[in-house]
């Protein structure tokens, strides 16, 4: 069984999960425990097996591209804490040059 190493800061950043410093070692340990458990899968031979991503066997499900009644602007915004002129207001994500 291989040794699992996990950089908890890196994973938390990718997952956009704010962690308290006291949580880091607990999560680190628990995630490593789980990863060691799933290593069980390495015992299963899958060289000639295709992966399954869905079980419905449905493909290319499409519909007519026609508009139908939907949420009003008011309804769509009703749960946002910060709106302006019918838009959702967020912090800028691009910096000015």
């Amino acid at each position: 069984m291989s040794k699992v190493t996990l950089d908890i800061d890196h994973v938390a950043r990718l997952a956009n999960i704010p962690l308290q410093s006291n949580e880091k070692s607990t999560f680190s340990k628990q995630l490593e425990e789980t990863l060691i458990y799933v290593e069980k899968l390495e015992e299963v031979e899958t060289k000639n097996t295709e992966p399954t991503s869905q079980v419905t066997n449905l493909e290319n499900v499409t519909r007519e591209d026609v508009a139908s009644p939907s949420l009003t602007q008011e309804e769509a915004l009703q749960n946002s804490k910060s709106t302006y002129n019918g838009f959702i207001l967020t912090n800028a994500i691009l910096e000015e040059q």
Partner: protein
Amino acid sequence: MLNNLTIAQAKKLLDQKKLSSSELTKFYLDRIKKLEPKISAFVTITDKEALKQAEKADKLISQGAKKLLLGIPISIKDNFNTKGVQTTASSKVLEGYIPPYDATVVNLLKEEGAVIVGKTNMDAWAHGSSTETSDFGSTKNPWNIKRLPGGSSGGSTASVAADEVVISIGSETAGSIRQPAAWCGVVGLKPTYGRVSRYGVIAMGSSLDSPGPITKTVEESAFVLNILAGQDKFDATTSPKNVEDYTKNLNQKISDLKIGISKRYFDQCEKDVKDSVMQAIKVLEKLGAKIIEIDLFDPQYAIAVYTIIQRAEVSSNLARYDGIRYGNGRDKFGEEAKRRIMLGTYALSAGYYDQYYNKAQKVRTLIINDFKKAFSQVDVIIGPTSPSTALPLGASKGHPMFGEMADVLVEPSSIAGLPGINVPCGLSSENLPIGMQIIGPQFSESLILNVANQFEKNTDFHKASPNI
């Protein structure tokens, strides 16, 4: 006289004008008021809205309207969007969120006149098998309030077991209907993936999630599936296959039935569970069914597959919660959600995708093929639903894979998208319910409901109810 009413019994009282829906709804709201301090099955009780819906139902009944659930009080798991009623999935991230639309399932139930008395508690985001990871506190098992109800639909199954409602609606990703149904002693049906729409259900594992009914009897399960099943233009994974009348074959004889049992599914079970389920299989054998030993893939591998696929899908699905459009910030995620999101993120991250996610998807194929092979020899597979009866409160704490262990016997069939039903089949020496599950091939709901109903008709286990 109103105790443990089935849908048919309640409808009869309403149709014969012996009782109004308003009276019936008040009866259940009173029970909820009395029992909630003990079991906490609900996150939100919608008493005012329910009484309004009941009044409307009474008006329709007096006009002679015929709808399948007209005036019948029900509860709905808190991960179904309900227009105008707070929907949290038992997470503080969604505390205060008021959906502007109804989930398709909720819409279908409302169209049939159901009276929704409240939203039931669950493991936060449906992450778990105890209801203990709810950010609003654990639900307790009505059979013994020091025990867990199971989960994640534990609030729903507890509300049915405690007779706080006639029926409830839950959802299962891998065990979340069947396992709490087993621990609470009620009937829980997980339909084939794609049979019931996921639109408006807060997503957990999108390739697995299946909404389904939680009832006191098998007949009601079939009756409610008739309402829920069908293609939905808002969920492209719903099947275009025709919807059968699931109540039609409930009384077919099962004398030609071939039942598969796999020793592996009994190996890790408590003795009482093993004995009860074996007894139950003997009942079916007496009705003429043939028992055939089959060798299924070790369910331990299904745990590993599920752990990877589910966490990966969770990390993707829960990425949308940013507190900008609705809900609160990501700092409000509870411990279990953080753990699952991070594990999934890791499994999908550059350099690890093949090792974890792709590998799990390949083993998923092998599990599906394994079931296909089994169903070429037998019609249904029967086994225990959960290896144990309800565990004590606190049992899930500090165990990052508690859910997987409690769901070891339901995960393989979920991964394969198969339908399965839990039927109560005994009580343990500690007076806790034991459940057996009947699994069939994709879209074999009629058959497994038939087998479940034949068992129920020839036994009395469904009549047992907790003394609460």
